[in-house]
């Protein structure tokens, strides 16, 4: 009897050649682990060349239907820092509020529709909805509040059109924002309930020991701006990113995966943000985290669902704080004149650090663009984790192992939706 087996989860045939995950085992030895991620950014980098620097937020927003605000914000940060524009506080607050809306939407989707069924033993949210409709309704209600924030501030949720380099096309009045208070207060209660719910799941005890990377901004849980910090002691301006991180070409694909220069896997996203910046969470979110049993840091990928839930509380709390403090700016946008040179922008997408770099000429034409999404940055860490999870669970049958692998991948909420069809399973046994 041969003990050699391959577990592969392929995309649906409609996206030919874009496989998702392959794990090859020889007995108890893990021979090969590969996560393949299609990367729309490569296409967009080429598409951006020759376009106006003012178009970058709009164009890059289309890379992802789940996190358009992240792409817009990193693009805007790059252009504004290059052109020497500093937006007034109300504009910055609106951006942060819009971004909180995206966090609420994205985290609610992931926690309720994708991740929770793994822990509760359901194949999908559909089965969960049959047995526990109230839980799924909670998730949908949370998502809806996130949508509402995005529509009010961003003009539209899938591809916010109200956002521009320098500010907004139109800013909401105080009164308009007040309409979000009641739904956000309800969402905050729901988020607290979400923390209690997810904290009660069963977790295999796992710890990832790679470096952690997240933004930091004094006095706040960094979302729309910040310096790049790592557990290993890095403290970088966005312009220093390329000096410390590099992208490796992955064979047979157009994807790139990141590592620390000189070799070094790192992780960004909720676990990194929480572990490096839990002290900056709102008091309510900190309290919820403590009640959920989270310590000062959390390196357990399975518990990322609890961390996301805590971030949901924070995002609702922060939205309410921003709305309370908001004063309408004198004008919706600052004028921006192009400056020849290279601009760098970062922000914390729901699933981690999103880096943009643009070179533009004096007319504002984009000469070169580079986009490093969080999923490329996390890819090596995910593969390491998969390898380890498989190595510790080789006794499971193929189906159980496939489910565990998928859950392991889902722990990182990878952004592969824009093209990924994660459906067919093939198990090959050697002879």
């Amino acid at each position: 009897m041969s003990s050699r087996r391959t577990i592969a989860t392929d995309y649906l045939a409609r996206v030919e050649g874009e496989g998702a995950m392959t794990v090859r085992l020889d007995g108890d030895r893990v021979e090969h682990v590969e996560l393949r991620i299609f990367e729309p950014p490569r296409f967009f980098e080429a598409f951006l060349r020759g376009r106006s620097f003012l178009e970058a937020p709009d164009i890059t927003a289309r890379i992802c239907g789940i996190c358009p605000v992240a792409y817009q914000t990193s693009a805007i940060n790059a252009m504004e820092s290059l052109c020497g524009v500093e937006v007034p506080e109300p504009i910055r607050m609106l951006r942060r509020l819009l971004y909180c809306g995206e966090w609420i939407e994205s985290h609610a989707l992931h926690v309720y529709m994708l991740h929770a069924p793994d822990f509760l033993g359901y194949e999908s949210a559909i089965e969960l909805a049959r047995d526990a409709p109230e839980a799924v309704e909670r998730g949908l209600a949370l998502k809806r509040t996130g949508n509402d924030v995005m529509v009010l501030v961003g003009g539209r949720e899938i591809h916010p059109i109200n956002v521009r380099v320098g500010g907004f096309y139109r800013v909401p009045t105080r009164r308009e924002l007040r309409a979000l208070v009641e739904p956000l207060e309800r969402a905050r209660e729901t988020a607290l309930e979400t923390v209690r719910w997810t904290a009660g799941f069963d977790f295999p005890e796992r710890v990832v020991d790679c470096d952690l990377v997240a933004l930091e901004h004094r006095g706040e849980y960094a979302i729309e701006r910040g310096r790049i910090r790592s557990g290993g002691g890095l403290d970088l301006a966005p312009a220093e990113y390329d000096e410390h991180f590099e992208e490796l070409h992955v064979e047979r694909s157009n994807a790139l995966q990141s590592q620390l220069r000189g070799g070094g896997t790192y992780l960004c996203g909720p676990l990194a943000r929480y572990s490096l910046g839990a002290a900056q969470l709102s008091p309510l979110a900190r309290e919820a985290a403590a009640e959920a049993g989270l310590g000062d840091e959390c390196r357990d990928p399975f518990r990322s669902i609890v961390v996301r839930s805590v971030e949901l509380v924070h995002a609702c709390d922060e939205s309410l704080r921003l709305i309370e403090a908001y004063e309408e700016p004198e004008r919706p946008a600052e004028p921006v004149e192009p400056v020849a040179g290279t601009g760098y922008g970062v922000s914390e997408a729901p699933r981690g650090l999103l880096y943009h770099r643009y070179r533009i000429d004096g007319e504002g034409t984009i000469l070169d663009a580079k986009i490093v999404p969080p999923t490329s940055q996390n890819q090596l860490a995910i593969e390491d984790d998969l390898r380890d999870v498989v190595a510790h669970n080789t006794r499971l049958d193929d189906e159980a192992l496939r489910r565990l692998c998928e859950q392991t991948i889902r722990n990182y909420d990878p952004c592969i939706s824009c093209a990924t069809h994660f459906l067919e399973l093939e198990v090959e046994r050697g002879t």
Partner: protein
Amino acid sequence: MSRTVVIGIGNPLRGDDAAGVAVAELLRERAPAGVEVVACSEEPSRLIEAWEGADSVVLVDTVSSGAPPGTLHRFDAGEEAVPARAFRSSTHAIGMAETIELARALGRLPGRVRVYGVEAGGFESGASLTPAVEAAVAALADEVLADLEEERCTSAP
């Protein structure tokens, strides 16, 4: 008064994945009064919100079943589940077929649910519709329109 919503689903920047959105664009100008036409990403809460309060919904998405590009597939999802295998799905979002079942489980599905799938040829980033799919999109827009007219006549008092 009964309300009908037509939803075109897809990513306009990924070749034939734009088929559903293209059908919605064609119908936007021509749909009978009382019919709302929207383009949408296949994201559950957005779809469920888009058909909230409607009596009848028409969904158009891309399909990959191995049939020749441009082939039209028709499903009556009010009666039975749509084969999820033919429509997209991922670790990161749940697809149209799953959303229909999710809404069914939650009692949030309109009474009448018609699903049209356009068999895709390619999903190249930045590519336009392939010729076979472009032709299918035009034919499907006519078919949906005829169906909407008929529905309006039969539901009229």
